């Protein structure tokens, strides 16, 4: 604790021999946002949003377009000031705070780099800015399979390559927290897979914490241990993926039938049924709390009336995609 006596900078920091350290005085959450509110004119982008990210976790930020994901990320990065509410990153306010930027890697939704500079030169400059050896530049380029493009100008990169370059740039200073807005956008499936492997590897080996915003939900479910689902600027559900699945899919039943369209109509009319999704093999039915047994009882008689054959009824197991739909769409449930 000698280091603490040498000058505490804030709740989560101290500086010793011109080095910013977070290890000995780590706040309980790397990111702690409470009651964030931000509006643009009449549009409320973020509305009383709460978000906590623990060290060593991979959190997915999920939500439809315009839900407030990018605004939330910008507030966390100190690019936007919230109208009200508080946010702390590494225990400090992020606005105009150079200390925490040593610890954060950022991948923006669109890659913003000076177009005329060469990739390796630009990364070397980033290395010098962050005070890491310049060899690191080629190392990160290689980690995203972009080593062959080391002498290309940034404007000569394709959209996918630019995205990879943005990721390399975010990792150049070995950050403790990586905040990525649509990190896998513009990437081909192989590159996406490789990148998710890299995320998993960095998480496992270096305990890097990730906040990933994405529309491609299966990817998030592959790497994330928890998600925050945002709708209309609010976190409508958040927590461990397993817990969320059990909470939101317990009331979803899967009915396999030979005539899904015919059976859907009377099932929808049942008072306790909240949503019915039809596909070629059957129905996914969401019911009110405690009404699962009733559905088991009612469906055979309904099927008999419309001459449909029931092949099976079972408790639903949803993908993150389905979970997201369940939470965000009508009757999706409340905030956790």
């Amino acid at each position: 604790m000698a280091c603490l006596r040498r000058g505490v900078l804030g709740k989560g920091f101290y500086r010793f021999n011109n080095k910013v350290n977070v290890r000995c005085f780590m706040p309980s959450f790397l990111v702690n946002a409470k009651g964030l509110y931000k509006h643009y004119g009449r549009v409320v982008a973020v509305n009383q949003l709460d978000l906590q990210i623990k060290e060593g976790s991979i959190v997915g930020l999920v939500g439809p377009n315009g839900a407030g994901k990018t605004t939330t990320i910008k507030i966390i990065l100190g690019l936007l000031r919230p109208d009200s509410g508080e946010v702390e990153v590494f225990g400090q306010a992020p606005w105009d705070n150079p200390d925490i930027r040593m610890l954060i890697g950022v991948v923006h939704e669109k890659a913003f780099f000076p177009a005329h500079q060469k990739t390796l030169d630009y990364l070397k400059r980033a290395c010098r800015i962050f005070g890491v050896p310049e060899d690191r530049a080629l190392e990160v380029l290689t980690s995203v399979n972009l080593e062959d493009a080391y002498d290309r100008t940034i404007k000569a990169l394709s959209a996918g390559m630019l995205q990879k370059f943005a990721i390399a740039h975010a990792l150049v200073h070995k950050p403790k927290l990586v905040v990525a807005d649509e990190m896998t956008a513009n990437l081909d499936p192989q590159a996406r897979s490789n990148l998710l492997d890299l995320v998993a590897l960095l998480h496992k080996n270096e305990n890097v914490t990730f906040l990933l915003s994405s529309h491609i939900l299966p990817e998030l479910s592959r790497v994330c241990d928890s998600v925050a689902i945002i709708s209309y600027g609010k976190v409508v559900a958040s927590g461990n993926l397993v817990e969320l699945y059990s909470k939101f899919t317990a009331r979803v039943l899967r009915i396999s039938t030979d005539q899904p369209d015919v059976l859907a109509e009377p099932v929808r009319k049942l008072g306790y049924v909240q949503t019915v999704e039809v596909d070629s093999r059957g129905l996914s039915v969401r019911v009110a709390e405690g009404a699962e047994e009733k559905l088991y009882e009612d469906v055979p008689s309904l099927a008999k009336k419309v001459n449909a054959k029931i092949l099976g009824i079972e408790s639903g197991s949803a993908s993150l995609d389905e979970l997201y739909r369940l939470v965000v769409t009508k009757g999706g449930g409340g905030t956790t």
Partner: protein
Amino acid sequence: MKQKPKGRPFLEVFASAVQEDYRFPLLEIFAFLYALSTFVFAGMSFGGYGSSEQSAYSLVSALMSIPLNIFMLLVFKNIAFGLGSDLEKGTIQTTLSYPLKRHAILTAKLLSAIGVALLLLFGIQILGLTVVAAGIIREGIHVVILTYVASLGYPLLLSAIILFVALWVKKGGLALVLGIVMSFAFSVIQGIALIIAMFNRTAVPFQILAIINPSMALQYHYSPITSFGGIVWNPSLIEVVTDVCACYALVALALALCYYYFSRRLNL
């Protein structure tokens, strides 16, 4: 442990801004234009010799007349297509992810946009003065300095306004257009002021305009405005210095507003 480099981020952001602002062959073209206008076209506006002070003023004015316009063009371009474009395209967000305070980022950008352009201008001007008339300059060095300071007040004030507009609207092109329009508008206003002053025999319009462009006061200090045989305006040296100070106070105010807005208010 994370090393927080001292000073290095600022220099690197500055170097990056210089690389973008003066991409080949821009620096070379502007250096050529400065040299051409200093050494070739200066004679066209040289007002001739008088007292040592007047000679020094005439010489510096002649050497500065065209390069000053080129300087304005370069600075406007740098602000509009450098910082303005960074804001428009979002490149500034990457710069803001570096361990550097916002005011330091703005300083680095301004040093590149204005500082380097000034260095280039003065490098060639000093060379020009030394080659053309070192003796005259030595005798009237205070006039030389005052002339340069007074001449730069107006371009710097316009640049600060353009910078503020670029930060406010986050569009470099719009700020550039506004800068050019303001520049032309001021020339027109100056012409109207001259007519008003001549016919009404009043110096008030010039006294107001001299706060924005103190080089006018210096010009009329050495060659007064006359109308129908009478002197309309012949400001004293004290008045000139006051106008220069007032102009730089406006520049400082505009820049302070820019710094405040960029550091405390600018949401991206």
